[in-house]
């Protein structure tokens, strides 16, 4: 790029404003012919310089040396724009020179609309909550073979799972390695104390409650882990012919929103009372005593639901809260459990189905069934983590739409 190609930017209207309000961040304005002007903090631009000294293309990452003694007072010495090539040039007060393509800048524009777009379209798809009575509308079926062979089907499945928290995969072979193949398609299985794959069928004397034929009330899997497994996958190999064995599912984020609106005090109690979740037992040679203390409804800093913990068998008899918080918690929990039932939906999987759902968000259960030699139910289960699912969703999105980040 020759100097003649560069066009000096019109003197920044912001400069004068800056003199008056020294607390204001120092911003670089970029006029974009196709859209609204963009603004970038100078320190951010310097931190994200794309030159070979500052950025390593092979790792797509920032070289860290600048940060051994970062000077946050660094200033723009001179800036210019190549309008034809759409490149912003900056010379810095520390003598460094940087250039930024407009396409790169647009993707990182600090306007709230752009940030919202990025977070929803690329970071994590926006969740849509549902009540059990709407289940038929949000229910979507995917074909196992297509997920294995076709990237766009894979992308749609994961997008649906991220958005609604549940998706049903049909026509999987009745083989033991279906969940492994599906997990490998996404990334890899999440191992837990119970191993990688687990088998759910009636086992007299079982050390885990799920292995009994009794009704299994609504719950999340493994609330006793700080790092709760993200997505549960259940592959039906054999289904009981008896009337029971029906899957129950509830979007507990929806239930939490109902409580937030209708029972705000009980909602607060369920968000603020830490509960001891526990699992004591052994699997193979490994003895375990898992405990995690966390509320039933977990919110992020902005008050959005990020995780539900609920499991009657896996709630510890230790309850490490002040005495006076106990009764209010029980009353709030009873409301939550009642609402979870009210908003649940039931359906029975058939052999070859793989039910996949968000274990941070949904509570699931099954009705009791009559397990006899002639009336077997056999489900295989496995987990994958959301970190891995979202990563693949981004990779697929970039592959399918060239303008994605």
């Amino acid at each position: 790029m020759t100097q003649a190609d560069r066009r000096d930017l019109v003197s920044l209207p912001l400069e004068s404003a800056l003199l008056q309000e020294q607390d204001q961040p120092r911003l670089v304005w970029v006029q974009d012919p196709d859209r609204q002007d963009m603004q970038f903090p100078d320190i951010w631009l310097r931190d994200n310089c794309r030159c070979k000294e500052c950025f390593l293309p092979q790792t797509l990452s920032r070289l860290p040396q600048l940060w051994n003694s970062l000077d946050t007072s660094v200033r723009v010495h001179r800036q210019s724009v190549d309008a034809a090539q759409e490149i912003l040039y900056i010379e810095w007060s520390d003598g460094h020179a940087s250039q930024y393509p407009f396409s790169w800048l647009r993707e990182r524009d600090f306007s709230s609309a752009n940030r919202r777009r990025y977070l929803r379209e690329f970071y994590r798809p926006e969740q849509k909550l549902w009540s059990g009575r709407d289940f038929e509308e949000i229910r979507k079926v995917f074909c196992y073979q297509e997920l294995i062979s076709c990237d766009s089907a894979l992308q749609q499945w994961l997008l649906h799972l991220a958005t609604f928290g549940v998706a049903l995969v049909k026509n999987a072979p009745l083989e033991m390695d279906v969940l492994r193949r599906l997990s490998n398609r996404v990334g890899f299985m999440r191992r837990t104390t119970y191993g990688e794959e687990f088998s759910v069928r009636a086992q007299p004397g079982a050390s885990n409650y799920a292995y009994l034929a009794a009704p299994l009330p609504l719950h999340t899997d493994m609330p006793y882990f700080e790092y709760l497994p993200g997505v549960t996958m259940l592959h039906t190999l054999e289904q009981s012919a008896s009337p029971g064995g029906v899957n129950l599912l509830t979007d507990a984020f929806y239930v939490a929103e109902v409580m937030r609106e209708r029972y705000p005090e009980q909602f607060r109690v369920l968000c603020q009372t830490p509960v001891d979740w526990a699992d004591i037992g052994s699997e193979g040679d490994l003895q375990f005593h898992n405990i995690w203390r966390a509320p039933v409804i977990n919110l992020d800093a902005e008050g959005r639901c990020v995780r539900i913990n609920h499991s009657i068998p896996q709630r510890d008899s230790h309850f490490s809260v002040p005495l006076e918080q106990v009764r209010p918690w029980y009353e709030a929990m009873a409301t939550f459990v009642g609402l979870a039932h009210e908003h649940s939906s039931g359906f029975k999987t058939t052999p070859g189905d793989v039910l996949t759902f968000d274990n941070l968000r949904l509570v699931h259960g099954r009705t009791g069934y009559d397990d006899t030699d002639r009336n077997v139910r056999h489900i295989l289960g496995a987990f994958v983590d959301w970190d891995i699912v979202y990563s693949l969703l981004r990779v697929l999105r970039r592959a399918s739409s060239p303008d994605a980040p």
Partner: protein
Amino acid sequence: MWVQRFLSRSAGQLKTFSRQISVRIVNETNIEVLEENDRKPLTFPGVWLRDNCLCEDCFHGSSKSRKLDWDNFDTRIRPVTLEANEVTKEVKVKWSDSHESSFSLDWLKERSFQKERQKDYLREFYRPATKHWSGAEFQEIARHFSYEEVMSQDSVLMQWLQALAVYGVALLRNAPLDEGVVRRLAERVGFIRRTTYGEEFVVQAKPGAQNFAYLSLPLPLHTDLPYYEYKPSVNILHCVVQTDSPGGSNMLVDGFHIADILRRDHPEDFERLCRVVVDWNDIGSEDGREFHNIWRAPVICLDAEGRYTRVNHSVPQRDSHFNVPLAEVLPWYESYARFVRLAIADSHAFKTRPGDVLTFNNIRLLHGRTGYDDSEQNPRYIVGAYLDWDIIYSRLRVLKKRLGGGKI
């Protein structure tokens, strides 16, 4: 009204060993249990006791878990009559739903709602309280263990995990120099935490590497994989070959200590680093599989009670996408630069030797290494793996129950 039951004559020989137990109902719902000579009674909410009934209908013995029918659980349940038995050390409760429960005194004591008892339980059994340290204190807090003893003696295994939980770092010595060490060690605790980069990973200079750690350049202080919501908890780094060149030293900083300094001396910086959400990312591929990991979280993460839950820091793995309002950007950079300066100033450097296994808390500590001269005559070869705190704490509890040293 205190209900008292005295020993029957037939059990009279036990009388000298038994303390009298008194029980009563208070406020219609709570139950108080007072053992002779104790000054304060133990108080238990009735609704909690009913929920934790240990009879066969309500509790599943082999899975040690509750099976009470919560679909029909009535929180208005009240205790109606109480009975204490000094011989069996049990308290019997008859409920307003005509159910009957029986609880041993030991079981009740372990679940006492007294504040001090709960604090002990949480600190000694749930998760040991952490002790933060400055770089200058490193020699005092760094515990050394023999690899062979950790592998063969449960008590040493427990001490290692306890030190790791409390100080966030511990060093094992004299491990063999084969590549199976990290796996054997992880399986002594539980199992390896797998990541995008596989289960075990090798850190050695690889020209053209896709990850910055695989270069021989200086590796500034960082935490591993901040771009995961589910960040690996503990690093196990087994030094197989160490470079003879002057570099290749490990650097460690207690990120919680740096956070303590900020909280005390620079509260505005502290507040900002706890609040402003940063995009951490990693884009690349491993074994032909592409990934694009992103996790948005502050540098210092706090729980609802203001305790540290995690520190995130990695210059190369901080995304150029920064999804915050414009006005937040410069102040955040200033606060973050202060955090980094403090961490660099406080870091402790030391060089591991072949056979050393460095283990540290990746949720809490920052680590790095100085650059080194990598050549065929001067290689450096480290095998690493991760363990998760869920699995470590579980193991520690099992060991404490078996060996003592922790309450159940």
